[in-house]
């Protein structure tokens, strides 16, 4: 066996990140994480009230990862993710109003009420993809475009779950990206479960990036996904490495989802004790404590911030509620681009 016996957790000096980002950026990152959390909690409640239908996959527990990635890379790159897409859309500038309206299936929604929870988009977010691993070739294609057009200051970044690793599209995409030197960052958010199947029962090697990457002649990294600072430092490093080497990289970010696979999943495969233990490392609490400790924010300020975000999400729900339904007369419009 040549698999890694332990992951080499990417080390980041928290103080250096605090210094690098400064108080305003850090507060903004905390605000975004709290916005994501508030958005999803309120949306879940709206779902339970029957305002939202279909599939609904919460990102709760994983907020540090994409918040850090967007902060490190900036919005002017190509982004793609799985069906767990609420956070990335918010981070890339979609408003809570348009996203909530999309969840409500309203005409004012992010995708005109046609996409729903799994299919959010922004100018640089290629989607929310509903089929596991469906976004991985797409993000690889965005990296192909970057290279084709000779753009030197952009990358493509693709988020996927641990459940996507056994899929064929993962293998084919990574092989092509490595073969053709495409600037793509593949981020496996390992939340330990592909629906109700534990990752150990799905993938034949223990360390998803470090064990897999060498097979594609790529570098593999492992980040602690619960710690914003590690994620920021890690993505900052990867961004510059990919721009410099013009080569793809593979990173596993070890995280936890605090909710079920989807809203309809009671999570019976995971004991209450395990979940309780897992939730001790809440990425938002870790971030808050660090910022309090650094004297960047106070408990009172956090409470006020959280309250204002809750209110803005409630306003988004109100907006969604009051928005018009899509006009059934327009049902068949836009199947084709003009």
């Amino acid at each position, binding site marked *: 066996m040549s698999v890694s016996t332990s992951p080499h957790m990417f080390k980041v000096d928290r103080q250096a990140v605090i210094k690098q980002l400064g108080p305003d950026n850090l507060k903004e990152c905390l605000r975004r994480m709290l916005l994501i959390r508030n958005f999803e909690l309120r949306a879940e409640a709206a779902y339970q009230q029957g305002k939202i239908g279909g599939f609904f996959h919460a990102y709760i527990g994983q907020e540090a990862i994409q918040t850090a990635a967007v902060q490190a890379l900036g919005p002017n790159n190509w982004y793609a993710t799985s069906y767990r897409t609420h956070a990335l859309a918010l981070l890339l500038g979609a408003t809570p109003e348009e996203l909530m309206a999309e969840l409500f299936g309203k005409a004012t929604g992010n995708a005109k009420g046609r996409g729903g929870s799994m299919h959010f988009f922004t100018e640089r977010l290629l989607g929310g993809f509903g089929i596991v691993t469906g976004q991985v070739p797409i993000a*690889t294609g965005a990296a192909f475009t970057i290279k084709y057009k000779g753009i030197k200051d952009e990358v493509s970044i693709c988020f996927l779950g641990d459940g996507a690793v056994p899929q064929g599209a993962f293998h084919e995409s990574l092989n*092509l990206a490595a073969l053709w030197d495409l600037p793509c960052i593949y981020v496996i958010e390992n939340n330990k479960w592909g629906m109700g199947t534990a990752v150990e029962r799905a993938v034949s090697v223990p360390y998803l990036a470090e064990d897999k990457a060498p097979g594609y002649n790529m570098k593999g990294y492992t980040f602690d996904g619960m710690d914003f600072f590690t994620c920021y430092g890690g993505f900052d490093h990867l961004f510059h490495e990919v721009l410099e080497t013009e080569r793809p990289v593979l990173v596993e970010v070890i995280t936890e989802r605090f909710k079920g696979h989807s809203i309809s999943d009671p999570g019976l495969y995971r004991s209450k004790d395990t979940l309780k233990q897992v939730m001790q490392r809440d990425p938002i609490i870790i971030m808050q404590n660090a910022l309090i400790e650094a004297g960047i924010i106070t408990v009172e300020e956090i409470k006020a911030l959280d309250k204002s975000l809750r209110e803005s999400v409630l306003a988004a729900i109100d907006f969604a509620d009051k928005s018009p339904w899509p006009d059934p007369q327009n049902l068949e419009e836009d199947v084709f*681009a003009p």
Partner: protein
Amino acid sequence: MSNGKQVVELREALRQAIDEEMERNPNVFVMGEEVGEYNGAYKVTKGLLDKWGPKRIVDTPISELGFAGLCIGAAMTGLRPIVEFMSFNFSFVAADQLISNAIKMHYMSGNRFSVPIVFRGPNGAAAQVSSQHSHCVEAIYGNLPGWIILAPSNSYDAKGLLKSAIRENNPVLFLESELSYGDKMEIPMGEYLVPIGKARIVQEGQDITIISHSRMVNVCKEVVKELAKSGIKAELIDLRTIKPLDIATIAASVKKTNHAVLVEEGHIFAGIAAEVAFQIMESCFDYLDAPIERVGQRETPMPYSRVLEQETLPNVNRILKAVYKSLHQV
């Protein structure tokens, strides 16, 4: 070559279309297995690597799912890929990307992203390539909204339609036939386009309408000649575009002839003929003097033996029988 005309094989007509569109738009590129150094499994891309280089004529490993999806991503981000499937049978390996992403994206994204992409390659039977290499995919994919499906039967249409396809802002399935790549035809030297969505009347007639597409049009031409010997004047329509279907041209013909026989190389059940027949029923019900007849591949996987292969595919005799049945001359 004279008077601005040239006689070209169908593969050369396709090559010219690709070459001209690559010249016209730097974002057009070709990707597929053996398209470059091998010069194309069927030589459609012959010489293009030498002319355009490996950036725009991209050889791939055997990874249809990967490179089809990659090209959809490239199309979403500003390029205009032409994906060659060495055979459309291999598109099944890429079906998730074609079905879940290419044709859903514009609608599903609330018009934010479009997918200007052409998937092209040989479709249907070749010569004794057996069960797994002989599928007709038009009915399988045609069931789904979002596709433009083109299936030319000759060099003129192949070139003009492919150029239109490459300029199209939506996913196109461009279905060729391996057995037709060597067919020669005189076409203009200069640039021309064939519009998407227009069928062509190959032969005018007033007794019966025969409707087909792709290679089967040539088989139907033989049928028309046979029928002429016994004084039956058949009108032959080449669909050229399967989706969107040019029902106006079809209906005008059936209203004139009052009889229709539909011929496709693929299978009958939920086939293209089933759709065309239904649309004829919708627009020509009162004009039909006989039930619509259809001839397609019989309900078997494609057998290897030449004898069995001929038996399962539509052929002149089976089509003639269908015509006579329609005309109550059985």
